[in-house]
C-alpha cells in the first residue's frame, strides 16, 4: 500500500521518519487530504485499536500521536479550510468552577491522537467561553468535564446556551459524578464514562 511505511513510522512513534515520509509523499504529488486520511489517521486508528486491545499503553500511544501531529503540521498549510481531511474540531474544557483537569487532559491527548483538531479551553470555563470558542473554531463537538457535583449545573447552562446560539455543535459530557441519566436530563448529545469512550463517541458523531 502507498502509505505502509508512513503508517509504520507513526505506529512506531518515529517523528522524524514520519515527517520525512509525509514530505516525500507531497513531493511525489500526493494530495494532502489523502496523506492525512489514509496515512496519518489510518495509522492512528490502528494505534487506537491496539490500545483498546491492551497491546499499547497510553505513553506509547502518545509517542505515536506526537509523530502524527508533526506530520500533520506539514500538511496543515495545504489543507483547505473545511476540507474533508481530518476528523473535525472538538472544543473541550472543565466547566465553570471546576479546576480538576487530569481526566480532561487525557481525553485531549487521545482525541488529538485520533486525528481530531482539539481546542482545549482549560479549566473553569464559562458557558459563554464554550459558545464563543465553538463559534470561532467551527467546532463539531463541545466536550465538557466536571469532577465536582457542584459544577455539574454549568453543563446544562452551556448546553442551553449552545442551542440558543443556534450552533450545530454536539454537546458531550463526562467526569466522575456524571451518568448517562444526568446527560439525558440536561439533553446533552452524548456521555462517555472514560477517555477511550469519549474518542469512540466523537468518532461516531463526526463520522
Amino acid at each position: 500500500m502507498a502509505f505502509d511505511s508512513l503508517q509504520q513510522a507513526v505506529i512506531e512513534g518515529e517523528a522524524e521518519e514520519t515527517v520525512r515520509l509525509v514530505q516525500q509523499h507531497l513531493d511525489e504529488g500526493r494530495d494532502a487530504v489523502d496523506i492525512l486520511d489514509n496515512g496519518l489517521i489510518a495509522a492512528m486508528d490502528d494505534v487506537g485499536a491496539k490500545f483498546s486491545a491492551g497491546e499499547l499503553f497510553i505513553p506509547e500511544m502518545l509517542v505515536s500521536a506526537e509523530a502524527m501531529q508533526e506530520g500533520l503540521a506539514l500538511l496543515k498549510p495545504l489543507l483547505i479550510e473545511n476540507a474533508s481531511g481530518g476528523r473535525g474540531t472538538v472544543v473541550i474544557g472543565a466547566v465553570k468552577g471546576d479546576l480538576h483537569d487530569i481526566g480532561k487532559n487525557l481525553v485531549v491527548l487521545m482525541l488529538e491522537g485520533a486525528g481530531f483538531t482539539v481546542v482545549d479551553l482549560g479549566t473553569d470555563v464559562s458557558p459563554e467561553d464554550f459558545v464563543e470558542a465553538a463559534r470561532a473554531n467551527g467546532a463539531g463537538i463541545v466536550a465538557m468535564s466536571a469532577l465536582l457535583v457542584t459544577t455539574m449545573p454549568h453543563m446544562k447552562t452551556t448546553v442551553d446556551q449552545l442551542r440558543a446560539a443556534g450552533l450545530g455543535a454536539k454537546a458531550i459530557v463526562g467526569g466522575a459524578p456524571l451518568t448517562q441519566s444526568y446527560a439525558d436530563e440536561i439533553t446533552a448529545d452524548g456521555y462517555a464514562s472514560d477517555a477511550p469512550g469519549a474518542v469512540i463517541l466523537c468518532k461516531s458523531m463526526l463520522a
Partner: protein
Amino acid sequence: MAKTLRVQLLSEDDVDSIFEKAAHILGAHGVKVDHDKALERLAQAGALVDPATKMVRFSRESIEAALATVPRSVKVMGSDEKHDFTVPDPTGRFYTTTCVQSMRYHDPDTGEYVENTRQRFAEWCQLVETLPNIDVCAIQTPMDAPPETADVHALNIQLQNTAKPLMLLAYCHESVPYLFELMLARAGSAEALRKRPLLLINPTSLSPLVFKGMDMEQMLGAAEYDIPVAANSLAIAGATAPVTIAGTVLVEAVELLAFLVMSQMLKPGLPFIATVFNTTMDLGTGNALLANSETILARAATAQFAKAALGVPVETFALMADSYLPDGQTAAEKVLQPTILALAGADILYGAGRLGGSTLASPVELVIDDRLVSVIQRTVAGVEVDDDTLAMDEIVAAGPGGHFLRRKHTLRHCREALRPDLFVPDVLDNWVAAGGKDLFTRATELYKELKKGLEPLPLPDDVKRDMDNVVKSADEHLIG
C-alpha cells in the same frame, strides 16, 4: 504490653533525602495557592509570595518553625465524647473512617448501582453510629440534593445522624461559609465549636503542587475555629505525579509539607494530620487504580515519611477496592492494604464501605469492613508476653497428655479471642444445613438486622431548626 508491629519501607537516609528534596522544591520553586486572602496571610507569616503568579515559596526557617509548632498528636472529637480518640494512639492501634463523596450506591436489595440520596446517606450515618470498629463518618454526595449545595445538605445529615467524629470536605468555594455556619449551629457557639470541633476538615491538593481556593477557604475556617486539618495529597502516579513509587512519594511529601507549613502559618499549633490519598493511573486504560501494589507501597512509604520527618499523625486510603462488588477481590484488597498500612504506622485508615473507583459505596461492604478491621486490628497488635500469658505453671500442671479446657487460666481468658460474627465458621454440615451462605449473603442479613434499630440522633428541636435554616439559606443564595 505487646510490641506494636511496624514495617519500614524507607531507610533513615531515604527519609532524609525525601525531606531535603521536598524542602528544596518548596524553597526554590514553590507551589501555587489560588486564594488571595490566604496569600496575604501567608505573606504576613513569612512565606515568599508572588501575587502575580500566586506562587508561594517557603524558606527553610519557616519550614523548621512550622515543624516546631505543629502538634505531635491530635484529639479527634465527635459530638458525643464517648467517640473521641487521640492519634497516634498510645497503644499503637489505628482508627478508621468511611469513604467520602460517594455519589453511587450498591443497593443491597436489588444489586443495582443507584444514586446516593439524602435518605440513604442518613441511614448510612446511623449505621456508622452502631458499628464498633468504624470511628469517623465521612461526607457523601446525596444526588437528590441540589448540586450547588450538596455538601451543605450532606453535612446537615451527618450532624443529625451520628455523634461520631466527622470528615468534611467542601465541594465548592461558595458553600464553605455555610458549612461553618452549620457546625456553629450544631455546636451552639463559636466557643463550643473550638472546644469540641466535631470533625476533621480535609482540604485537598490539586496535584501536582496546586492548592485551590475552596481548599484554602477551608484551611482559613479551620484556623479560625481550631478545627483539626487532615490535609490530603491526591497524587495520581503516572498522571499528576511521576510514574515511579518514590517519585509519587516525593510529590506527596512536598504537598503535605506545604499544607503543614501553611496550617502553622495560619494558626501556630493548629492540629494537623498528614493524609495520604495517592492512587495510580493504569496506563493501559487511563483508569484510576485504588488498591494495586504500587499504590499501597507509595502510601506506606509516604506514611512512614510523614511520621518520621514531619512528626504528625497519618491518615491513608486503605480500605479501597478495584472491584465493584463486595466480592473476593474486594475482600483481598481490603485485607492487604490496611494490614500493610497499619504496619507502616498509619493512624487512621480511610475507605470503609468503599467499592471500586472513587464514587461507589455499599452499606453491606461497610458492615464487612467493620468486621475485617477488627481482625486486622487484632493481628497487628502483636503478642503480649508475661508470666501469666506464658502460663508455664499451667503447662506443668496439665502435664504430658493433659488438656487445658478445665483450667481456671483458660476460663479467665476464654473470651479474649476475637470472634468476628461474619467470619467464625460452624462445621460444614451445619453450615450447609443453614443454607450454605457466602460472606456477602451473611453480611446482607446482618445489615438488614442492624437496619431495624437505626434512628437519627435525638437532637433538640431548636438545634435542628437552626441547622435546617442554614441549609435553606444556602439553597436560597447558592442555587441558580
